[in-house]
């Protein structure tokens, strides 16, 4: 499903090179519930960005459904993201001019889902995440935790095949985070949606079926639930 083959990612900032990923090879199969764990700077976010087609590797290949992302045009990448991927960003990144429900509807709107259907699904998802009363609020009127839940709703409501989530529980209390993870696990179990998280949160790591530990841009451990 998702595969990194001998990926190197080097950032060049004013002549100073930073090796974010070094010879990274990793395969994520369909239906996995996987966590990328590791300290800051270990390459978790970089790897998520590469898997999402938001960035290009310096060398090596990133493949989605056996398709090399480097061979895609910008429009094809946008189409891939729209049809197959859902993103939860570290900093929520909601669209400020849209209300909560419009933010959640946005991807479905791009996908061409009918207005009534997408409204039904968006309000249902927000209600499930405890935001049923806040659908018409704009992001600036919401707390950080509420924004994070809207961002998660936006990522999963269009039922993508893969959800890439960068620290999805970072701004949530443990109860809300637990509820969110329950929802994601249900989607994973019942609909086969693949989840790939980057996180420091032990609660997320505990629930993961697979934990890939990174350090200095390399995989240092790859543990499945049975070995955890």
């Amino acid at each position, binding site marked *: 499903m998702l595969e990194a083959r001998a990926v190197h990612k080097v950032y060049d900032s004013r002549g100073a090179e930073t090796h974010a990923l070094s010879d990274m090879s990793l395969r994520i199969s369909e239906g996995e519930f996987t966590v990328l764990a590791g300290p800051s700077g270990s390459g978790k976010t970089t790897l998520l*960005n590469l898997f*999402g087609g*938001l*960035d290009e590797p310096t060398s090596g290949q990133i493949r989605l459904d056996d398709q090399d992302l480097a061979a895609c045009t*910008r*429009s094809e990448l*946008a*189409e891939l*993201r*729209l*049809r197959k991927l859902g*993103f939860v*960003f570290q*900093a929520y*990144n*909601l*669209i*400020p*001019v*849209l209300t909560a429900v419009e933010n959640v509807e*946005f*991807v479905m*709107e*791009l*996908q*061409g889902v009918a207005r009534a259907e997408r409204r039904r699904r968006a309000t249902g998802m927000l209600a499930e995440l405890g935001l049923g009363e806040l659908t018409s609020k704009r992001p600036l009127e919401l707390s950080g935790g509420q924004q994070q839940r809207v961002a998660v709703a*936006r990522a999963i409501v269009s039922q993508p095949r893969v959800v890439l989530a960068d620290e999805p529980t970072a701004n949530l209390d443990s109860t809300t985070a637990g509820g969110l993870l329950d929802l994601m696990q249900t989607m994973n179990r019942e609909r086969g949606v693949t989840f790939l998280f980057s996180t420091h949160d032990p609660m997320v790591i505990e629930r993961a079926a697979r934990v890939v530990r990174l350090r200095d841009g390399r995989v240092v451990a790859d543990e499945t639930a049975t070995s955890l």
Partner: protein
Amino acid sequence: MTTPQLIWRNVWRNVWRNPRRTWLTVAATVFAVFLVVVFVAMADGMHGKMIEDAVRLSSGHVQVARDGWLENRTLEYSLRLSPELDAELRATPGVLGIAPRVSNAGLLSHGEATQGVLLLGVDPPREASVSSLSSRLWRGAFLPASVKRPLVLGAQLAENLKVGIGDQVLLYSIAYTLENAYELFEVSGTLRLPDRDLERGLALIRLDDAQHFFALGDRISEVALLAAHASEVPPLTASLETRLPLSGAEALEVNAWNEVMPELEQFIIIDDAGMYVLLLILVIVVGFGILNTILMSVLERQRELGVLLALGLRPAAIFRMVYAESLLLAAIGFAIGLLLALPVVAWFTAHPIPLSGAEMEAMAELVGMEPVVTFELRESTLPGVALTIFGVAALAALYPALKASRARPVDALRGL
């Protein structure tokens, strides 16, 4: 799939995200549209009036003459206004008046004073259907039948010759037969004309007297035609050129007012050019205002644009969205500018501004028009202004739209 509703909803909300900045840009556009519409209407009104005044004063909108007349202006190129030709001209759609004329140069002498003049032989009733000469009578009568060989002079010419109503003056010229022609004429009236050059040099006699004086028989030098408006001249000349013989022994030529008076057309072109350069500078300044607003807006939204790309919005849709924001700003400014400008133009179209002061009157005299400022909103003005404003807005949006659509999602998300 990106629906237009999705784009326009985001565009509308983005535009009003910073209302103060948006209103400042809109205000600049309103100001530009207002000035452009008002100034263009004023210039078109003034130029239209110049043309109509000049046309009604002497040339007519169109002149039909013997082929070669305009270039040579000698009686050798006179023509016979046959009943068939007269009927053909009357039957031409768009012709409101027909005035046959004899025109030639001459000398007027009274006592010790002699003046070169443009001598115009006219048929008073038919001339009144084309020119305003008879209505500009200042003193006396306009070529009355009761006077034998009456003569009407520009008031300044009469003053220079020191003649009054009832005085006899001697007219000299060369006849069609190339013999000397001279005859006594009686001053029956004087004209006040907005064109002082013409007032110093124009002498009118009756058409039959002119034909007799120049030994022309029933020939004339030209036929002046009146149309409803200068804008109808091109179709009228085109129509005449299909109806009249333009080749052969009796070939005719059809001359529009701008061919008869090229200096007036050149004056208008130069005047327009100066105005349009100034207005273009104004519109370009507005374009930079729009560029600044849109570019600031794009730079402030780098992260958000990255999110849109990450969520699957295509780069082309981002480009269209930023572009539409610029066009929306232009559209709001254009609409408000028009709402403000149109009543002003309508008011001054109905109520021309009289010019006062010696300098203004002298300027009006210079171009041979009455000293009033008139307005005219032509059909082409609003589409032209719209095209200019939206064109400038489109150009101004190009760089920000390209910058937004070419951003790498990961850079945009990092706010780079």
